[in-house]
Structure formats: structure tokens, C-alpha cells
């Protein structure tokens, strides 16, 4: 855990110093909301359509972030430096997934209010807690898969393509569950609590892929 915290701290310091990832993700999300606004030719959306727009936008923004996760490691020798150290290699998985989770949380602090202002019809405030629960579970799954696929892509020449090509199919179950869980929340007359069934699906997805990632990550880091 000490090594994971060390790598995470380094990643957050680098992001705070360069602002290379989170601002790009936020800008991408805002632009996408504007595109949906004009593309759908609607001033407001609600229910399942709103959930779909929000989930897809956040998912693609997350892929942008995942694509940047290992850039410093690859370009500045961070991988070799880490592999030389006497630490459990899964520390890198935990640190990178935690970093992506934090990036997503910060992104959502900007993107969700922007979505509420630009597109969402019903008021967001009464459903905010439910939506936070849904997005937290979704972010966990996206962070794990994003880290896993970025680690796969790092050793390939077409790394910019491999991440999305491998990651998107793996993220489809999370996308479905997130959209289904968020849909009822974003309806005009919502109870404010997300459907338990889809929250359970998201939690199960996170557990399964978290364990898979933990089992294979060491192998992925080998030459």
C-alpha cells in the first residue's frame, strides 16, 4: 500500500503541475454536451435519454483520461524505474486506478453541473445523492478497466487505438448499468433513489473486474 500511495501521490503532483488530463476531459465533456444540445435539437432532456447522454459523455471523457495514464511512465522511463523497485507490481494498478477515479470525480464536479445547466430538464438537486452513488460505482469500474486496457496498450505500437478498442467492449456492461441506474433519477418525477438492481450490477461488475485486473496486471507489466 505504501508503494501505491507513493505512485498515486506522484501522479497527482504531476497532474497538478501540468494540468494535462483533467482540463482536457472537462473541455471534452462540455463540448459534447453542446454538440448533443444542437444534435438532438432539444433544449432539455430527461429520463433515460438524459442518462444516456451523461453516461456516454463521461465514458468517452474517461477514455481520454485513461489514454494519458501511462504517458509519463512510457516517455520518461517511469515504467523501468518502477519495475526496478522492490515493490508489488499491483501497486501500479491500485495507484493508476485511484488516480483515474480521482480524475473522474473532479471531472464530474464540473461536468454534472454543466449538464444540469445546459441540457437537463428536471432539477438535479433532489436526486444528487442518488446520482453520486451511481457515478461513484461507475467511476470505479471505468477506472479499473481504463487502467487495465492502458497497461495492455502500452506495449503495442497502436497504443492510441488499442485502449478504446479493447476498453469500450469491456465497458458496455458498466455503461448499460449506469444508464439504467441513472435513468429513473433523471426523470421529472423521480423518487430520488436509484434502482437497487442496477446498483448491484455495477457493484458486481466492479468486484469482478477488480479481481481480474489484480490477477493479470503483474503479467501485463512484463516485457
Amino acid at each position: 500500500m505504501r508503494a501505491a500511495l507513493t505512485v498515486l501521490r506522484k501522479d497527482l503532483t504531476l497532474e497538478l503541475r501540468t494540468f494535462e488530463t483533467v482540463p482536457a476531459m472537462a473541455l471534452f465533456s462540455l463540448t459534447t454536451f453542446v454538440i448533443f444540445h444542437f444534435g438532438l435539437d432539444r433544449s432539455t432532456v430527461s429520463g433515460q435519454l438524459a442518462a444516456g447522454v451523461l453516461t456516454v459523455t463521461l465514458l468517452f471523457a474517461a477514455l481520454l483520461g485513461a489514454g494519458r495514464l501511462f504517458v509519463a511512465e512510457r516517455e520518461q522511463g517511469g515504467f523501468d524505474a518502477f519495475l526496478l523497485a522492490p515493490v508489488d507490481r499491483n501497486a501500479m494498478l491500485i495507484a493508476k486506478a485511484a488516480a483515474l477515479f480521482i480524475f473522474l470525480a473532479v471531472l464530474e464536479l464540473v461536468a454534472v453541473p454543466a449538464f444540469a445547466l445546459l441540457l437537463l430538464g428536471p432539477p438535479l438537486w433532489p436526486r444528487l445523492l442518488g446520482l453520486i452513488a451511481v457515478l461513484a460505482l461507475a467511476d470505479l469500474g471505468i477506472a479499473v478497466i481504463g487502467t487495465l486496457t492502458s497497461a495492455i496498450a502500452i506495449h503495442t505500437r497502436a497504443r492510441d487505438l488499442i485502449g478504446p478498442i479493447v476498453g469500450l467492449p469491456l465497458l458496455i456492461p458498466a455503461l448499460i448499468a449506469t444508464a439504467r441506474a441513472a435513468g429513473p433519477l433523471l426523470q421529472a418525477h423521480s423518487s430520488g433513489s436509484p434502482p437497487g438492481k442496477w446498483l448491484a450490477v455495477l457493484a458486481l461488475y466492479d468486484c469482478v473486474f477488480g479481481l481480474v485486473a489484480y490477477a493479470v496486471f503483474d503479467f501485463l507489466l512484463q516485457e
Partner: protein
Amino acid sequence: MPDTAIELRGLTRRFGERTALKDVSLRLERGKTLAVLGRNGAGKSTLLRILSTLLRPHEGDITVLGESLPRRAFAVRSRVGLLGHEPLLYRDLTGRENLSYHARLYGAPTARVDQLLATVQMGARADDPVRTLSRGMVQRVAVCRAVLHEPELLLLDEPRANLDPGATELVEQLIGRGNGRTRVLTSHDPEAAIEEADLVLGLRDGRGLFVGTPAEAGGRLQELYR
């Protein structure tokens, strides 16, 4: 043999169709210096990466500091320091932040960071981002990184690259012959490398052309670089 630092028997490593190292064997005692010489692409850096556990061999037996590689790689990592072509430093972190990061990964005391920076006279620029430093300064910080955890075995790939004579003298305290560590070094200056070696390995196209004393190696340099 407890006084053996490195023992290679039939070490072979391939990259696809190309054989980078073929049937390399040698034995190096603890505290001694091995100079690995050869033309560009002879396999010098590959050998260092295998000894550092970054690469796995395809054939052969390797024992480093009494541990068999790659099976016991984890046990070797804390005892080996690698100074390669790349400094392995994050450009947007300062020298001090980079070294503190490595100190935490190795469980080394962070007080050693300041001590090392002072040794290589980088204290005044320690809080500048690495991307703003000259190549010589970056190399000085990289030397600090390689010795931060006080490794028993130092793997030095062109350690004096980018260093002026003054800086070379500074880093000598950390990676020079005098500190008693076992060292494996490569250099494109064979005469200088032979001068500080106890054993010399000549590599040509991945094959060990000779393993011998500096005196023996001196007579075969022309053959090696022909």
C-alpha cells in the same frame, strides 16, 4: 561460491528473430568491476537490463548476488542500482521530488536525498523541474537515483555521458571504484573502461568474444572494434 557477485552460464536473449546475446558466460567476484565492451548493438545494454531484472533471459543460468534470475528477481531488486541511457526521472518533477519518490519506493531514508544532492553539488537546483536542467545536471541527479538505496551491485551504462570533468569527479564519489561496490559498466571509451576494470567482457554481435583481465583485453581491442 559466496564471494561471487555475478555468474552467467550460457546466457542467451533474443528479440524476435534477432539474437541480442548468445551463450555468454562469466564469473565476477564481489567488489570487483566488470567492463563490458563492444560496438553499438553488441548487446551491452541488453546484458545490463537482464542483470537489473528488467529483461528475462531466454536461455542460460544467471546468478546475481547469490540469487537465481529471473526466479528470485524480487530479492535482487533492492540490491541493484541501474544507471542506464535514460535518467528515469520525471521531467515535470524537481530533482528532489524525483529522488524522494524513489526513496519511498525503496524504503530509503529521505534524509539521504539531501545528502546525495549535496554530494553532486545539486542542492541549489534541487527544486527546479528536471526539464529545466542541463543534460549534465540531469545525469548527476540520475546517478543519485541509482545509488539512493545503497545497492551492492551497480550497473552503469555509459555513466559519464554528458558529464564535464568537474561533474565526473563529483559522481566518482558515488559510482567510482573506491566505494567497494561490485560494478558492471559499459563505455564507448574502451581504454578508460579497461583502466578501472578487474575483468573485461568483449561482446561482438551478442557473442562473448573474450572474457579476461584488463591486460588481456587491451591486446584484443582492435579485434573487438574491427
